[in-house]
């Protein structure tokens, strides 16, 4: 069985800790920042700027883990490691996959906050 887009246990725990109102603010902050971070990946890859690439992937990974976005976390982590180990040549279509995973996670998060 495929992993859920958002791990509800993680999300509910976060909601309980932060409060129902604040979780909305947190999700909004994520939806605001994540596209900017993801948009940095392609130019950084073309410029062979492993440092910027790694930091952007690192931030996406960190936020994904906060919200229980398990797939997004795994994919961002893989990209971060590729940058860290100077294996950017192996990125292939992983950015497109990540973008799609993000869209799905963002959709579920919005629904959860509605």
């Amino acid at each position: 069985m495929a992993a859920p887009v958002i791990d509800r246990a993680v999300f509910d725990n976060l909601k309980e800790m932060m409060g129902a109102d604040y979780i909305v603010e947190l999700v909004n902050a994520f939806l605001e920042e994540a596209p900017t971070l993801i948009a940095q990946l392609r130019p950084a890859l073309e410029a062979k700027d492993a440092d910027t690439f790694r930091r952007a992937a690192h931030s996406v990974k960190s936020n994904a883990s906060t919200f229980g976005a398990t797939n997004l976390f795994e994919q961002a982590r893989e990209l971060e490691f590729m940058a860290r180990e100077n294996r950017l040549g192996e990125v292939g279509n992983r950015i497109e996959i990540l973008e799609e995973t993000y869209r799905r996670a963002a959709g579920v998060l919005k629904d959860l906050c509605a």
Partner: protein
Amino acid sequence: MTLQPDRLLVVDDNKVNRMLLVRSLEQQGHHVAAAVNGREALDLLRADPFDLVLLDIEMPEMDGYQVLSAMKQDLKLRHIPVIMVTSVEEIESAIRCIEMGAEDYLPKPFNPVLLRARLNASLEKKHLRDKEQLYLKSLERELEIGREIQASFLPTSLPQAPGWEIAASLKSAKEVAGDFYDAFYIEPERKICFVIADVCDKGVGAALFMTLFRSLLRFTISAADVFGERSPDATVKYAITLTNNYIASTHGETGMFATIFVGMLDTATGILHYVNAGHESPLIVNSSGVSRSLDRTGPAAGIIAGVEFEVQEIQIRPGELLFAYTDGASDALNSSDEPFGRNRLAALLKNSAPAEMLLYEVSIQLESHIAEADQFDDITLVAIRRAG
């Protein structure tokens, strides 16, 4: 005691992480400020006092390592505890930060229980250190007050009779000293009383007894006249005897005592009546060097009540110099633990130099001998020179 909320600074370029930490810390009752990068963090830290910093490692421009390193090099910021916020995969980075002086680390995504525990441990240490600093400051203030009051127990100016020069200096080993000197007119323009003394031990205890010895001697010498003791030898004897008896009988159990040289000088004739109560022998220097030494005429004062002190009489002839010192000078150690020595001190004495100049030269020699070593005892020097 009311507890002030702690002021914490969260430094993270990632907005969600920043919001999460700020919220969690506020929920725990702290005042929280946030910085989005290292530069802003340092600006905030330099502008306002903070109790703790939660610092992300991965940041553009100025990363966590650079912020940490800048804080550790800044005297005002180096004691603020820093907790590194890292992902579990960054454990190596966290170790590096702890080696650089970070207090602890917190793995992301963070757990509120762990956050509270790590925070409290670091803050508790910080509070203890703050208290210690406050305590040290108040102690320093007290000692400074003590030092100022004690300085007021030394004469502000020394009597300068025609044909005589009197100079004195005191360099204490600690903030307050057990040594003292005194010199004042007994009979205007003619008779001068002078004292050099070394209270056993150093620091605050010795300083308290210094004020007592000094006051008793000054009072008994000044009062001698009132009680009918007019001759210089009787006055000196009266003063040292009363001082000794008072300390020994009233403060005997403290075991405090002083070596004292007290002299009454008639500046018209050069006749000096003195008692040397266990003190280093002052030296009389003429053109061919040290000619006489004014050795002990009784034990140190303050030990045995009722003990006899003998008064001696000598004449300081024109062109002669009297040099008195405390053992802090003769026993001054250099970094190899070698004392300066009485012979070397005596060899420095020239009766041709002005009194002030002579003390200056002796002080310079002592300073260069002690050099990097710690001055372990107070150093007091007195020079009295009769014009030739």
